[in-house]
C-alpha cells in the first residue's frame, strides 16, 4: 500500500505543536510505521517536492511567510492547520479580538485549509485520530461538542459553580476538558464552538457574580478573522 508522504512545516510560532507530536514518543514510532515523514526542518528532513499531507503550525506575519504557505499549499494534497496560531492567528490565546495592529494572520486568509486541529497546543489524541482517518482514507470530523459538554460527561466539578471564570460553555471541545480536569477554568484556546450564545454566557456569568473579561464583549462582534469551515 502507498504510504502517505507527510510534511510538517512551521511559520511564526512557538513550535509547541511539533513538540506535542514528538511527545507522542512510542506512539509516534507507530505512526511512522504507517506514514512516510519526508519533510520537517526541526528533524533535519528536507524534501521540496509534493506531499500527500502538509501539517502547518504558526501564523503568517510577513509577505515572505505568505509566499511560503502558498508554496506549501501548491504541492500538498491535504493541508492541515495546527494549533491556534494557524487557526486564528493566536487570537484565542492572546484574547486579542479586533484591536491588534500586529500582523498575525490565520493561514486560511491565504490558502484553503482542509482540516484544523485547534487548541494551544494541539491535543495529542485528536492528532492521532486525524492521522488514523487520513491513513484509512476517511474524512476527519472535529468535535461538534463544547468543552463544557465534554466536561460534564467526565464528571469534573464545575468551576463556574464555584465562582471561577471558565470558557467551557462557548469553546469547541475535543480536548477532554484538560484544563478543568487540572482545576483551572477553560482558557478558550480552541476557539468558539458551533452556534454558541455568547450573550447568554455573559448573562450566566453575571448571575453567578463572576466578573466579565472585556474580550468577551469584543467576541460578541465576532472574532475578527475569516471563516474557518472545514471543507
Amino acid at each position: 500500500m502507498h504510504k502517505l508522504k507527510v510534511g510538517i512545516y512551521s511559520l511564526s510560532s512557538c513550535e509547541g505543536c511539533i513538540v506535542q507530536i514528538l511527545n507522542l514518543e512510542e506512539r509516534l514510532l507507530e505512526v511512522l510505521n504507517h506514514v512516510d515523514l519526508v519533510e520537517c526542518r526541526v528533524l533535519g528532513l528536507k524534501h521540496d517536492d509534493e506531499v500527500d499531507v502538509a501539517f502547518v503550525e504558526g501564523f503568517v506575519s510577513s509577505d515572505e511567510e505568505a509566499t511560503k504557505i502558498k508554496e506549501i499549499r501548491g504541492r500538498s494534497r491535504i493541508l492541515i492547520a495546527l494549533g491556534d496560531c494557524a487557526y486564528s492567528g493566536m487570537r484565542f490565546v492572546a484574547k486579542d479580538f479586533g484591536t491588534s495592529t500586529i500582523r498575525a494572520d490565520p493561514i486560511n486568509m491565504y490558502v484553503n485549509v482542509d482540516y484544523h486541529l485547534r487548541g494551544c497546543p494541539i491535543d495529542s489524541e485528536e492528532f492521532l485520530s486525524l492521522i488514523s482517518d487520513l491513513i484509512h482514507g476517511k474524512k476527519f470530523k472535529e468535535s461538534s461538542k463544547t468543552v463544557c459538554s465534554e466536561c460534564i460527561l467526565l464528571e469534573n466539578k464545575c468551576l463556574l459553580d464555584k465562582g471561577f471564570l471558565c470558557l467551557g460553555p462557548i469553546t469547541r471541545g475535543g480536548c477532554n476538558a484538560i484544563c478543568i480536569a487540572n482545576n483551572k477554568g477553560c482558557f478558550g484556546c480552541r476557539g468558539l464552538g458551533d452556534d454558541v450564545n455568547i450573550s447568554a454566557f455573559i448573562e450566566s456569568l453575571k448571575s453567578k457574580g463572576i466578573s466579565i473579561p472585556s474580550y468577551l464583549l469584543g467576541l460578541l462582534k465576532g472574532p475578527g478573522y475569516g471563516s474557518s469551515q472545514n471543507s
Partner: protein
Amino acid sequence: MGVVRIVELPRIEGHLDVEIEILGEDIRVRAMAREGIRIYDMILRGREYSEVPDIVSRMCGVCSVIHRVTSVMAIESALGITPSDDILALRELATIGGHVQSHLIHLFYFILPDVLGIDSFIRLIDKNPGLIKKVMRIKGLANSIIEALSGRAVHPITTVNAETSFLPSRDKVYRILDELKATKNITLDISKIFLEAEFPDIPKEENFVSLASRDSINLLTGKISTTSGVMEPQAFLERINAIVEEYSTAPHFLFDGKAYMVGSLSRLNNNYPLLNGSARDLAKEFNLTFPSNSIFMNNKAQALEIVYFLERAEEILGRLLEKDELKLQSEKKHGNNFGLAATEAPRGLLIHTYQLENGKIISANIITPTAQNLKNIEKNASEYVRALLNNNFDLGEIRKQIEFLVRSYDPCISCAARFRKSNNLGKKLYK
C-alpha cells in the same frame, strides 16, 4: 571568497539564517533571526497580571515551563509575595522536567545527527531502534514530571502557587519515583554517547553568565554570576544593553559592551563544585574539566545535567514525600508593583520584569537566553571560520562546522524573536 547563507538552519528551535561573509581577512558571521513578529512584551500591556502566565508560556513550545514559572515568580515579587520552600521545590521539579525534555530534544534530535553524520534522528528507527526507545522513555519520564505538577508537558496548565490547590497525587509521585529508579542506567547509557564523543575544542568562549548557586545548581533564584563578579539581577540588567540589528528580528545583547554566553556550559563553569552524584562520577570518568571554554562542551554539559537533574528530582521527591503536609502558604508583604525574576531556562539565563498598576501590566520586559547568546554566536562563529580557513577547510565543510557550532548553543529563536525590522518596532522597544 564571498558569502555563504545558511537558510533556515535545520535542527534548531525556530527560524534562523546564518550568513558567513569572507572578504579577504575580513570575516563576518551574522545570526539572522527570521521568526516573525512575536511581541509578547507588547501583547501583555494592559492585561490583568493573572493572565500573564498563560500568555507567556506560549513564547516557546520547548521551554514553556520555565517561562510560566518565571512570570509567576516575577509577578509574585511585584506583589510582595515570597513563595514557601515547598512551593519552590515543586516548581523546581516541574522546571527539571522541562529542562530534561529540552536537553534530550537538543542532544538527540538536533545534535546527534552531527555526531553520527546522518541527516535526521529518525534514520535511527531502522539503524538503532533500541536507542530511540531509550531516549523516548527518558523524555516520557521528564514529561510525566511536568504533567504531574502542571497538567500538561507543553504549555503547562497550572503553576504551583498559593492560590492553586493543585498537587500531584501520591500515586503519581510514586510512579515517577519508581520510573526514576528503574531508568537510572538508561539515563547514564544515553548520556555517555555525548560524553565520549569527540568534539572540536575551538573556539574560545570567555564570558560566562548564569545564576550563582550555593547548595545545588540554582534554577529559580539567586544572584547572577559573571566574569566581572557576582551581582544582583537588577545590577546585571543595568549593565546589559540590546542592539537592534537590521538583519535580525531578535535583539542582540551585550554585557559591559561585550558578547557573553549563557546556557548549560555557563551553569557548569560557574557552579562546577556543586555538580554531584553520578554526574560528577561521569565527568571524572570521561576526564571532563570545568571551566571549559569550548562551546562544543555545551553538549557534554547538557548530557551531565540530564543525569544531575534526574537525580536531583529523585532527591526532591523523596524529601517531599517524607513530609506529612506541604507548606503552600506564602508570605505576603506590601509589594512595590515592580517585579523581577531571574531564572535558568534550559538554554540559560532568563529574566522577566513586570511593572504593575492597579493589578494590570503597564510594561513587561522578557530577556531570553538566545537573544543574549546571539552576539557571542556571531563572534565565535567568525573566529571559527578563520581557524577553519587557516586549516584549508573548503566552504562546504566550513558551512557544516558552523551549523554544528551554532546548533551547539541550542538556540531557540521562537523565544528570541520580537520584532520585524521594517516597522521600527525594535528600535522603539529597545532604545
